[in-house]
């Protein structure tokens, strides 16, 4: 890293779109030890698992809300943990908020490492954690109206593989 270049943020929460190539170039820039980059992009889908049932309405738009301050800090902590667990060089998370259309990019997780295994694992670890513990909320619009998306227990199970317990979707009823 050049000492004249200000450190790039590891986490960005933004309304605007992101450019995968530019993000990967920046992640790798100035680090000759990088031999692998793994990226994940989540996009806005027009249906849920199990659809399309011919009678069910497809999703036409999505809106995302976050908790300014907490969301960034939570993801920063996840990246710190990824750097502890895996032999990776750097990681970057971009998450969009606000109104989005079908096919739009929602989230980018990018990880660089010397060898592929560690960046594959760290990328999945970060995405699994983000799904159950980063404060974002999705609201989807269908021809039947707008509704908040329910959390999924399957996301909790994905996170449990890494030894991290979450009760996001399975909140015990007190």
């Amino acid at each position, binding site marked *: 890293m050049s000492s004249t270049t200000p450190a790039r943020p590891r986490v960005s929460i933004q309304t605007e779109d992101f450019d995968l190539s530019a993000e990967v170039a920046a992640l790798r820039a100035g680090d000759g030890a990088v031999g692998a980059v793994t990226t994940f992009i989540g996009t806005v889908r027009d249906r849920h698992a199990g659809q399309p049932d011919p009678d069910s309405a497809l999703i036409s738009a999505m809106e995302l809300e976050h908790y300014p*301050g907490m969301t960034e800090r939570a993801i920063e902590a996840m990246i710190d943990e990824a750097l502890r667990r895996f032999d990776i060089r750097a990681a970057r998370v971009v*998450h969009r908020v606000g109104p989005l259309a079908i096919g739009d990019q929602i989230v980018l997780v990018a990880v660089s490492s010397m060898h592929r295994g560690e960046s594959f694992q760290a990328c999945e670890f970060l995405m699994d954690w983000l*799904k159950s513990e980063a404060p*974002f909320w999705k609201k989807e619009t269908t021809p039947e109206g707008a509704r908040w998306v329910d959390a999924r227990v399957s996301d909790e199970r994905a996170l449990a593989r890494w030894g991290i317990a979450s009760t996001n979707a399975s*909140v015990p009823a*007190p």
Partner: protein
Amino acid sequence: MTIQIRYFASLREALGAGETLALEPGAPALTVGALREQLIARGGAHAEVLARGRALRAALNQTMCAETAEIADGAEVAFFPPVTGG
């Protein structure tokens, strides 16, 4: 003592973005769960969306917390539905 309450997503739609709550000086330490009870006791939309048995999460000073967490003067407490990012 004064605390800041914030709501997000469906709770924000029902209750607004939040409020500043002044608590009586000398009142016993308040937990996040006890605060939820106080808000439920207001009735109306508060009682409905914060009701026991509804899936809710809470954060204290912008960190996820259990309802046993104790609230200090000046704290920021947030209530919101389970998260659904990504």
